[in-house]
């Protein structure tokens, strides 16, 4: 059975001199939220910056996000949440990512994320928090600077 998520693509590919593979990002839409314009725009920006992006499509459970991130050996797990359920979702996701050995990867989240939730999201392991109005170049730069 083919995986139930999209394989997207990447930008120019690995730098032949450094011989490093491109940064691999799983962009996921958590929960039932159907607003995917932002996730797709960010996915394109990351691809344009030369990263490999796996976009999950909508309606991913915490278990699915963790499994895809593990299967794809992702460097970055990026969530896009517009419908307010980010905290309960991330509370479930954190132990699953850790259990899959992805605790040292870069976790980032963007979308409609009220300021009052940022501390909690950091506690849950999200190092990059990009609320509505964040700039694409800032997201790209943050990812490049923070992937080990």
């Amino acid at each position, binding site marked *: 059975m083919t995986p*139930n*998520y*999209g*394989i*997207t*693509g990447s930008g120019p590919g690995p730098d032949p001199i450094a011989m490093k593979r491109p940064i691999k990002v799983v962009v996921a839409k958590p*929960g*039932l*939220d*159907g*607003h*995917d*314009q932002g996730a*797709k*725009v960010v*996915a*394109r*920006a990351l*691809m344009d910056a030369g990263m490999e992006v796996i*976009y*999950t*499509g*909508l*309606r991913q*459970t915490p278990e699915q996000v963790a499994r895809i991130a593990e299967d794809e050996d992702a460097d970055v797990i990026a969530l896009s949440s517009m*419908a*307010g*359920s980010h*905290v*309960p*979702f991330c509370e*479930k996701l954190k132990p699953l990512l850790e259990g899959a050995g992805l605790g040292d990867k870069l976790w980032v989240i963007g979308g*409609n994320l*009220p*300021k*009052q939730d940022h501390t909690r999201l950091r506690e849950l392991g999200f190092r990059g928090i990009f*609320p*509505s*109005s964040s*700039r*694409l*170049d800032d997201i790209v730069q943050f990812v490049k600077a923070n992937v080990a």
Partner: protein
Amino acid sequence: MNERLKLRPAANESGIEIQPSYGPQDVERTGGFGFIGEAGAYPFVRGIHPLMYRHRPYTMRQYTGFGNAADTNRRFKYLIANGQTGLNVAFDLPTQCGLDSDDPLAHGEVGRVGMAIDTLRDFEIAFEGIDLDAITVSLTVNGAAPQLIAMYLAMAEKRGYDVAKLRGTAQNDILKEFIGRGTWIYPVEPSVKLVGDTIEYCARHAPKYSPVSVCGYHIRESGANPVQEMAYAFCIAKAYADEAIRRGLDIDEFAGRLSFNFNVFGNIFEQVCKFRAARGLWAKIVKERYGATKPESGWLRMIAGGGGGGLTFEQPEVNIVRGAYYALIAALGGAQTMALCCFDEAYTIPTEYAQRISLRTMQLLIEEMGLADTVDPLGGSWYVETLTNQMRSKMEDAMAEVDSQGGIVKLVAEGAIQAGVSAQAYRMQRAIESGEFRKVGVNCYRNEQAEELDVQMHPYDEADAKRQVARLAEVRTEREGPRVAAALASVRVSAESGSNVMPAIVEAVKAYATVGEITQLLAAVYGRYREPVRF
């Protein structure tokens, strides 16, 4: 010409070049004045009614719903007390995706972005004390529309209304959910079949009820330009009309009950001309392609408003001003119904305060600004008539392109439309970030201090979700088990046989079957949608 004027964009978002001035020769060059006609007469460019707002002002219908049915009922009554004339109901995501509140997949989402509905009991509470003849209700639901339409009709009937005379609207436009908004459940083809079932059922049993509101709105929010917004919506409307006609319905039996939902953000003149052009184009399609003979079959009855894609996170108070212009656009565009996104919507579910400002904005135009005094006040402007002609011809081109590639159902199933609009959304975001496309407060006239403190957040109460789950458990215990089982078995039989599932769903909801129980049965027959991810 001074430097500032030179810097202005020479084209609108739909790619039409804008001249510094217009004269009668520009109207002639683009198709003439011939297609304009009179308000209330074919092709209805100037409005679907001869007197428009003089006869009846637009209905004001703010999008509202959160928590459980009792919470939402209180907000409904607040808005009605403040002069709102219709209701536009927001459901939470579990309801919209066909899940019950006690489903594990609903965890953390019950009552969050809308009202939770599990059974007819919730509908009874939500509309308690509201006169359904005086206040028409629009249900913003798509994937789970068959159940929720059935519940609305059952609730009204139980309260003594004659369903044959009941007015109201369901959004029920599933094809656009695959492009934007995302509350699909079943694969594309059975989803369209279900829309056909609701159109057929309502045409035969609730002929005043509008079973579908075809939405360009969310396609625009997803990245389409104004021409594509209308063109894709009309392609979708044609797909539903074709489906209804396959059932043996005559176009005149249902077309007059199709309604539309469009966006308003952007250039004022482009938006107003979009509506004028679209009215003429839809009337022409319904008459020429489908051979409708009743004039009202070709009426583009629409809610125009929202404008979320144009509002900004930065300097949220400025969104109040944007909202005022959006309302002006909808009024100049001849909308039957209006709703506005509130200034705080980039942050939160709107507060009562924000909702009241939006409502007052729409009331101002009628009461103080003279927008209800005369029909199509921009008609006859050389600029407006030229642009209306140009927009209509671009919409026809965009529709022809979809048809030449195999039609909207195929392009949506393949993910091609989605890929196209999302590529445009990316280009627009880049143009905003580079400053090429100007957004006040975003890429010019920024304030750098923290702004979020100005917005009061709508509280999400976990206890509401618990109460909802408790009520569902109570209904499951109290309802007549054998009656529910028999009704659900009929739903399954009708789905398997390929006949119209609506009569069986209506009986099932009357027996207090849940949204989720019915969804599971239908999904067992139709399967579930798998999203084609294409870039």
